[in-house]
């Protein structure tokens, strides 16, 4: 087992919106706080869980995302950003491979 660098790109394979939960800085439950498990493009079935930045309507199963970071209390917290609000890939394991071609935008393209 050894650390391996990955692109941070993936597809939302599991998703919920939390309407209540423990109080935390930077977490807003009004309207639903998104939490996703993202399947990384490098390895089918390997998922990372984090929140997703973007408009509520654009965050959905199959959306392509890229890992970003935000700082809360001086600590880096992983956060995914939408690559392209219109992209949709299948949410099955193999979908993370087939979906990697269409999301060519940089993180700055994603809605904030």
């Amino acid at each position: 087992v050894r650390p391996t660098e990955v692109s941070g790109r993936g597809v939302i394979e599991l998703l919920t919106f939390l309407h209540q939960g423990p109080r935390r800085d930077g977490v807003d439950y009004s309207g639903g706080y998104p939490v996703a498990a993202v399947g990384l493009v490098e390895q089918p079935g390997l998922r990372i869980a984090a929140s997703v930045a973007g408009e509520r309507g654009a965050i959905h199963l199959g959306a392509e995302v890229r890992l970003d970071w935000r700082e809360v209390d001086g600590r880096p917290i992983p956060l995914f950003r939408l690559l392209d609000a219109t992209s949709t890939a299948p949410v099955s394991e193999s979908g993370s491979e087939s979906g990697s071609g269409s999301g060519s935008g940089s993180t700055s393209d994603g809605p904030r």
Partner: protein
Amino acid sequence: MSERNPAKDQVAIVGVGLSPYSRDRRGVTPGSLVAEATVAALRDAGLGAGDVDGICGSMVAAQLVQAALGIPAVTWFANPPAVIGNQMVAAVAAVAAGMCETALVYHHAYRLPWASRAAARDPFRRRATLGVADARSGWGTGHVEAGPSSLVGAVPYAAWAQRYLHDYGYDREVLGRVAINSRSNAAANPNAVFRGALSMEDYLDGRMIREPLCVFDMDVPIDGADAFVVTTTERAADLPHPPVLVHAATLGHTDYGSEEQLADLDHAGQVVVARKLWAKSDLRLADIDLFYPYEGFSNIALSWFENVGYCGRGEGGAFVADHWDPVGQRILIDGRIPVNTNGGSLSEGGTQGAAHLREAVLQLRGEAGGRQVDGARSALVTPGGYYFNSQGMILRAP
């Protein structure tokens, strides 16, 4: 998968007892709830402390129960993590193997300050649980408070529910029917904490908690406990109630031990449970009279319908709709088999499958009062969710 089942029908449940379920009890502790339930179970079995030589519970230490009840000597004890199948399967194995002859089995639920406003106002409860973010963290099953941006513990059930609706094209009504079924059945259960009617309109208006699960999709926090007395079928013949035989029992787990890494619902522990249970059992699905699929989250029950064989993957939502009794507002499989007759975790109260098991025993003894299903001879009880606690038991009348 091996069909070996030397314990088949050799061990019986001969006593049940409970500490009544409540949403607003005060002045109780986990220990007092378990003491009340275990004493009741022993009395129900017509046995005394001196007859017990095995103890198997969830969070309250076996030694504490032994001391509280004055059980002079035990030769076997254990505290496996919740949920109830872990305790029952261990006790059945211990009795069958001769580690003990008569075992007490128990599980309790205790509202922690975060569970409800009433619990948060109870100063005793706040002090008793000081420093415990989530009592389930002590279960050793991955239930931890890990912050709102993770998918561990209870939260991923909502994410898997969303994925289920997405993949099979359902709307929330398929979850709602599970909740309404539990509520309709709870009306006849005096121990249920929610007994008022629940309509689909009520359900759809329910406060959203974790999409797509609303407040009615999630088990009710309560104080309460259940206890069972387990002994050999041979010894059971001398006891006051008709014994309920443990025909087949199993646990099930896959190598996806982490919720967000579970590949799909074909790789969940429920699949392992169903395969093993039917391998060990002489009874087939068509022989089952009562079904108790755990519904701590409503989507878990739909998955159980699929895995035990009532329908295929993704068909659980449609199956429940097709087998809906509009008069009783509940599920009636083939017009015959009721589901979660006690009101389940969603309406009797959330005790991680213990209430389902107790209800199955009462039904098979013919002692379920206004809920009694005529001629019920066998029950399929499937506690637990997807990841680390899937379990199954087939119980039958002798």
